[in-house]
């Protein structure tokens, strides 16, 4: 009778192969083409690594300065965006869930809206505001772009925190803390934050990934961040651009794998927590 089971297992294996094949076609093929393009000399088809070498050993120190400025700006903005986005969203989501559940659909809608607005439209809308910010309120420093990036990452941060808050019994935990005499501050810092830590970490990662990869806003508002500086350096050389793109993609993927592992760990721990109650006591 072993065959009964073996048959099901071989079906599962076939399906697994199909899924992996599908993933390959959709994601690996473009990457392979990109890699190929970055090392193949366009006209002759000769293969060399010049584009990659140019990245490691740039021949012009002025270029490096620009890159350094872009990287610094991007990192500062990443930190600002993380602090602003999570600082605004976590308390808001907590209060909405606990006190104003009717508003939760509105908050979700607002937070997810930026996903569906083309970046170009957002930039056009933000341009006049940044004109005012640059001249009247703050200055033309690139880092104020972080305010725009908060809008850009809102959907991702929302979804991450949403998943985290869903995985705990927010209401019972906060009511328990309250009933033992804890203030709202205690609820937030000593009970909720430690229990959605993996969601917060994953929100941070995705925010950092988005901010480090952002190009459209900075370019259209004429600011210098990592991507625009790379772009400027390599405007003249498509192959170097391809190499840089691959590098960025690689870094982003690394970040995401790290995120996935962290969230996976958190979920596994939680799964044990929610394991069914057995009879033995």
């Amino acid at each position, binding site marked *: 009778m072993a065959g009964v089971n073996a048959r099901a297992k071989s079906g599962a294996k076939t399906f697994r192969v199909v899924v992996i094949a599908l993933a390959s076609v959709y994601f690996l093929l473009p990457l392979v083409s990109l890699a190929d393009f970055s090392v193949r000399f366009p006209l002759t088809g000769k293969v060399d690594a010049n584009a990659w070498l140019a990245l490691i050993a740039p021949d012009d120190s002025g270029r490096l300065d620009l890159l350094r400025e872009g990287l610094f700006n991007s990192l500062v903005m990443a930190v600002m965006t993380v602090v602003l986005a999570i600082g605004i969203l976590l308390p808001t989501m907590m209060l909405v869930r606990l006190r104003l559940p009717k508003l939760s659909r509105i908050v979700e809608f607002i937070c997810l809206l930026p996903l569906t607005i083309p970046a170009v439209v957002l930039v056009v809308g933000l341009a006049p505001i940044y004109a005012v910010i640059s001249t009247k309120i703050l200055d033309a420093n690139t880092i104020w772009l972080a305010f725009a990036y908060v809008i850009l990452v809102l959907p991702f941060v929302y979804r991450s925190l949403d998943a985290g808050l869903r995985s*705990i*019994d927010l209401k019972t*935990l906060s*009511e328990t803390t309250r*009933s*033992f005499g804890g203030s709202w501050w205690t609820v937030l810092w000593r009970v909720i934050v430690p229990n959605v830590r993996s969601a917060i970490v994953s929100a941070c990662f995705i925010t950092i990934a988005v901010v480090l990869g952002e190009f459209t806003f900075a370019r259209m508002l004429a600011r210098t961040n990592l991507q625009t500086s790379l772009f400027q350096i390599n405007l003249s050389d498509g192959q170097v651009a391809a190499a840089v793109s691959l590098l960025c993609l690689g870094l982003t993927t690394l970040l995401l794998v790290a995120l996935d592992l962290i969230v996976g760990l958190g979920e596994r721990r939680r799964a*044990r*927590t929610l394991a069914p109650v057995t009879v033995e*006591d």
Partner: protein
Amino acid sequence: MTQTSASAGRGVQLRNLTRVFGSVRALDDFSLDIAPGELVALLGPSGCGKTTALRALSGLEDVDSGSIVVDGEDVTAKPANRRDMAMVFQSYSLFPHMTVAGNIDFACELRKVAGDRRKIVAENLELVGLGTQADRYPHQLSGGQQQRVALARALAVRPKVLLLDEPLSALDAKVRVQLRDEIRRIQQEVGITTLFVTHDQEEALVVADRVGVMSSGKLMQIGAPADIYSRPVTGFVADFIGQTNKLPGRSAGSSASVLGQTVPLLPGSASGDVTVLIRPENITLRPAAGVAADRAGRVQITGFLGSHAKVRVEVPGGFVVAQLGVGESSGLAPGDEVEVILKDVPALAVATS
């Protein structure tokens, strides 16, 4: 156990509480007194307002009108974190990121409990029989153990009132029975004033000094378990607590004729054509053929329940369920003819609807 005894014995008065959610009156001029050290169970179907009453007392729910007095002090306007109570919730409410000991210690820290906290933690874990589990995390415990820890945590802060919001509902039948006995034992040992909310009538009867039955935000009846069970004042209470047979009868003042027999009636019974509510254990069956038609029945199903058996008997115009000892029921099989005999125990008669 000296440290926990210190908190015992504060009286609670809920006075004319009203709470309206939209068109639902969750509490409708609800009043309840709990004596110092008493365990009162509130019982009722879902939506009857029992949980709202408990949450109003805890401060987690506001009331529209009425007042809440604990230990002589009006706490109606105090927020939940300053009412000095402790609650055990239906869902496991332990902090997942803290150990068992950490949970209790954290609660003591919040409530600023004086004294050696390590000792308090150890004593209270001992009280619920989990002395050896102090360093485990909630997810390493079974559901029953988690609720024990929640109970220990609630007792450790020496609250004026202990609030139990269906603490056993999420547990398996066997564990539920064990833990409810434990709760009763600990509550009597510590002597703490306790409000226990449940939808399980057996739980309420076993655990409480007094049981209050609620419906639509009102308290229908409150009394000792045996009183509520054997002397219900309305059909709703009789029906909700325990099983009843509803038999047509004719009331003549203090007694009624049912199935050709006379049954004494409880005070407050209706008169005229009535429905008489009779408990299964107040009916016996005698195997017999050819008895008077109005007390003859035919066995439909017998159900063995371990320590006793229930037998469903077809009678003219319906059926009755009788609860018998194992010995009495062993001879009965579906199809047997029996005589249905009503014991001489007072029953409630309600107007036939």
